[in-house]
């Protein structure tokens, strides 16, 4: 059994990075995730594991530092919150185009603009549909506990290198700030081996070029084709989700991250009222568990997407259930930093699905 600690989600991210054998972290302070940079500078992992920690002059610089360290073949991470992640979109697009691995954590706060420092889930579109310019996808993990904040860091590095693609951990201000018991995985030593594609000095090989530029359109189309196939492989092999009371469910809530934690309670309330409600929690938002939802659809009378946004993931649920046009799919959400209670979700659910039947 691993070491057990009581930690904030943000601290778990930082500790997990050190334990995952991360080579470098570049970040810039922003609420509600500044504890990550603070934890790392206090821990001073350079002394223990050799992991570099550097505070950049902006999120723009931070993501381009991530791009550089990733191009050199290293395990590298950055973290930020919504406005900072918007600034990073340029670098993320370049990483996707140059096929570079890297881990980016977004501890989401309410937007648009400077918004609020309170939690939100309003960056779903940005995270799962692209965010920056060009056709690309990130692999998106959505932790729902402090435990998963730690575990997803390790998983994210594995997936980033498996696909040579940036991986985004889409968290939010609740999970970042709340404290829970977490069982930490045993430290993995940093590796000195660099991948054969890395730009790290051409010792004993011909030279490597890391770029996302292909002025010849036919070559660039080929690269895009490769990317498209890679995203299709992710959709085939990397879907992760969790079901809760789904076996006999007649109604389904789909919710991720903090909202999924809240909706577990909503399921209990409904079950106490004799309503067969289940919960499907996507763990990967891209790839989205469309097949799992479609497989449940025949037994369902309705699906409620619960998100702290105006309704973004609900569009993916509608796509997943397009073979079942009669199935009622609705959204309930609070936004701008307001967090719904299990009771109000239950009330919204009954209004939408039960009273009108």
């Amino acid at each position, binding site marked *: 059994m691993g070491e057990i600690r009581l930690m904030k989600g943000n601290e778990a991210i930082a500790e997990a990075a050190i334990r995952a054998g991360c*080579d*470098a972290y*570049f970040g810039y302070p922003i609420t509600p995730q500044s504890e990550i940079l603070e934890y790392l500078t206090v821990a001073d992992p350079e002394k223990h594991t050799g992991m*570099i920690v*550097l505070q*950049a*002059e*902006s999120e*723009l*610089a*931070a993501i*381009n*530092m*991530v*791009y*550089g*360290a990733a*191009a*050199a073949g*290293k395990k*590298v991470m950055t973290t930020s919150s919504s406005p900072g992640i918007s600034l990073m979109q*340029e*670098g993320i697009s*370049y990483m996707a185009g*140059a096929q570079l691995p890297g881990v980016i954590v977004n501890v989401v706060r309410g937007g648009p603009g400077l918004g609020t420092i309170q939690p939100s889930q309003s960056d779903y579109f940005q995270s799962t549909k692209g965010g920056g310019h060009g056709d690309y996808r990130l692999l998106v993990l959505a932790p729902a506990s402090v435990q998963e904040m730690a575990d997803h860091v390790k998983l994210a590095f594995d997936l980033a290198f498996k696909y040579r693609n940036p991986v985004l951990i889409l968290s939010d201000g609740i999970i970042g700030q709340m404290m829970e018991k977490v069982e930490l995985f045993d430290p993995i030593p940093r590796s000195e081996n660099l991948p054969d594609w890395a*730009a*790290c*000095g*051409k*010792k*004993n090989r*011909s*030279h*490597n*070029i*890391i*770029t*996302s*530029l292909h*002025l010849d359109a036919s070559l660039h189309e080929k690269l895009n084709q490769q990317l498209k196939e890679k995203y299709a492989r992710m959709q085939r092999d990397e879907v992760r989700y969790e079901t809760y009371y789904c076996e006999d469910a007649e109604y389904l809530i789909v919710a991720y991250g903090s909202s999924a934690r809240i909706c577990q309670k909503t399921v209990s309330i409904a079950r106490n009222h004799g309503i067969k409600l289940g919960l499907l929690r996507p763990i990967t938002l891209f790839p989205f568990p469309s097949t799992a939802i479609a497989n449940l659809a025949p037994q369902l009378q309705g699906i409620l997407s619960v998100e702290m946004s105006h309704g973004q993931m609900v569009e993916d649920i509608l796509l997943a259930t397009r073979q079942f046009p009669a199935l009622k799919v609705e959204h309930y959400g609070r936004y701008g930093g307001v967090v719904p209670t299990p009771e109000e979700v239950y009330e919204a659910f009954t209004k939408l699905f039960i009273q009108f039947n």
Partner: protein
Amino acid sequence: MDTTIIKPENLVYQRSRLMTDQPLSFCPGCGHGTVTHLVAEVIEELGIESEVIGIAPVGCAVTIYDFIAIDWIGAAHGRATAVATAVKRVLPDRYVFTYQGDGDLAAIGTAETIHACNRGENITVIFINNGIYGMTGGQMAPTTLAGMKTSTSPRGRDVSWQGPPIDITRMVAMLDGTYYVTRQAVHTPAAVRKTKKALLKAFELQREKKGLAFVEVVSNCNSGWKMSPVEANRWMEENMFKFYPLGDIKVDGQLLIK
């Protein structure tokens, strides 16, 4: 043809073996081609080709990685020194340099330039300043001289509302993190030799972990300036060198200017 004079002892110059067979994309007469050759020569002479990583810019030199056979990373516009910072930090025993133009380094990348210099990153920054955006067709750059005509200052740069040209090299020399700051040119054989010496020194300082070395090369842009190469070099001497005087600005961490 009599080839008897082609003997090793008669050799005065040859192209660096690090140059690839790819034809240079620069306009004939442009200083970029000369500096690219110099970078290859310096890396070859120092014997560091297996240990060096170049960071390419966005601008006229965007495909410089096709010309010199070393490991390269193409950076986003202006971000080269942030990229170089990370590469050097994770691979401290390698040589890392950026090759950037004035739009890249002194406009969109000003923050990254200033902060990499201020942190004293142990890298080499090669800065080609021709006072114009060449790649996109000759628009006004932050370094464009007062009164100079470009496609976006068609009546000449008016400092009253477009601001004066920025001397970023002087600015970075003021920062404690820079160890060697110099301004050179490649318009004459003597100037080329001086620039090569400056580049050699910059890479040697990196070996000695002395801090950031910043080599500006004031260059022409005959296409953007709408001049012949010879006219462009003359114009550069008469105008650019007045605002951007050649010579060392900081040596061994000591400022040589007031």
